[in-house]
């Protein structure tokens, strides 16, 4: 049996090289907002504070040399039992001008699960945040409408949290359900 060559993707170092100037620019623009950074295997990662998510992304979007005009993806990770701070909201930004991705991580404690909303900056954030809200129970300050998006109104709990059981089905709703008959 052969062993495949494992290790970082061959272009990881090149990526790091390429992102070096981006990092410098970010550091000069954001300063203290960046709590830490890391060169991931795919893109640069910044760790930011949840309450400054919107101000940081405003800078990311509008500053010259950055122009992250796309909010490609926004999601959350539940680190239950693995990390001190339970949640982490993950943003992926993309810049069409510079053809570059950037990941921002905002650790959110369970005690105060609140992040500032990006709704005003990126329209895409509207549904992303609603989804994170119903799936993880993280609130978004400044979001206009925190209704449930994918689940129905009567659903209790946050299904994507690690402590919600995979098979945690709740009773059927509406006509024909056992509750009614």
């Amino acid at each position, binding site marked *: 049996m052969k062993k495949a060559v494992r290790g970082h993707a061959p272009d990881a170092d090149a990526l790091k090289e390429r992102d070096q100037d981006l990092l410098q620019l970010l550091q000069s623009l954001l300063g203290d907002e960046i709590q830490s950074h890391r060169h991931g295997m795919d893109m640069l990662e910044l760790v930011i504070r949840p309450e400054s998510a919107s101000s940081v992304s405003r800078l990311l979007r509008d500053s010259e040399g950055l122009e992250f005009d796309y909010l490609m993806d926004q999601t959350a990770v539940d680190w239950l039992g693995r990390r001190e701070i339970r949640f982490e909201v*993950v943003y992926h930004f993309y810049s069409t001008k510079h053809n570059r991705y950037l990941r921002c991580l905002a650790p959110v404690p369970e005690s105060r699960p609140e992040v500032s909303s990006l709704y005003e900056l990126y329209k895409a954030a509207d549904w992303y945040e609603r989804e994170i809200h119903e799936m993880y129970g993280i609130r978004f300050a400044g979001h206009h409408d925190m209704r449930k998006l994918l689940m129905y109104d009567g659903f209790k709990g946050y299904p994507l949290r690690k402590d919600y059981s995979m098979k945690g089905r709740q009773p059927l709703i509406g006509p024909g359900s056992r509750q009614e008959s």
Partner: protein
Amino acid sequence: MSHDTLTPAEDLRVPSQGGEHKAMTLNVGPSHPTTHGIVRLLMQVEGEEIIDCDLEIGYLHRGFEKMCENHPWNQCVVYVDRLNYVSPIINDVGYHGAVERLLGVEVPERGQWVRMLVSELMRVCDHQTCLGATCMELGAMTAFLYLIKGREILWEILERLCGARVTTSYSRIGGLTDDLYPDFEAQVRQAIADCRDINAQVDKLMTGNRIFIDRTKGIGILDRATSISYGFTGPMARAAGIQVDVRHTTPYLVYDKVDFEIPQCSNGDCYDRYLVRFFEMEQSLRIIEQCFEKMPKSGPVSVEDYTITPPPKERVYSRIEELMAHFKHYMWGHMIAPPAGSVYHAVEGGNGELGFYLVSTGEERPWKVRCRPPCFGITQAMRDMVVGHTLADVVPIFGSINMIGGELDR
């Protein structure tokens, strides 16, 4: 169609005095032919004009992320397949590309070519289905049947290739389930010719059709800035003049070795989206033809490391090592455990950038599998696109979105 918001007669009555306009609330969906079955549109209409619209999704939420978190890395392929069920192999390729990046392995060259080839076949299927459904909803049943016939030809090839027509699970971590079958090339070349023929027929039926142009031109326009803000990618963005295509911007697989064009339009209306999809099919067919010329004629398609790819069946039945590997993969699913870390890997799906954000804790199950569904942001923009148009315009707009439930609601 659901009537649950319908109320008895007084709601239909026009206010008798004061001349004040009262908008009517119209509930479209979730089970309604326009909405492809799983989106609910709550519209405020004044006559035929839509003055407001609220979208409700989630009627196909199947807990994709939860299922993936609770399954071993290589069993997630089942759920990944069913995200965008019109072009499942592209999803597989995206997910497996991400896992391979986490693992730090690279698929042999022939495997990459084959992946690209079948991805492009899938893209043709995707666009054919999308255009066909749009045509059907506009009343042109025949164009729909022609396009589905074209898709059928491609699916028969897929069926022979991997045993399934829709949910193929063709790609695997570290490669593919199997190599191409012997007369694959001849069959695909024939299929390409057939598809071109069918596309030409549909082109004649629809593209210059006055009614079709009237129904789609200038409908559902979204300007560049708003499109970007909503995160449009794929044909929708390219119809609005945004140059995004993962195949060009960050080439994965071997897209940098083939020559193809990215069709571009500028109006951002339904007609342009139709055209972009039409041209893209032709480009995909071109890529497939180039694949046959440029790909290595033989060689492995998968990484020959049984800790990553399951061993081939004939070896499983004759050697103990392979049998053990097989059991570990299929019975217990604890062969693959990428090092801790996270990765975002994007491929160009039928609808746009299909990204997979994987978080690994070094265990045998993913900690988090996030799919960036391309039609999520696009469907969200539905409101901006339909308001001000008439009720009938919902059909071409929604058709041009190519909303795929599995991907949207996950």
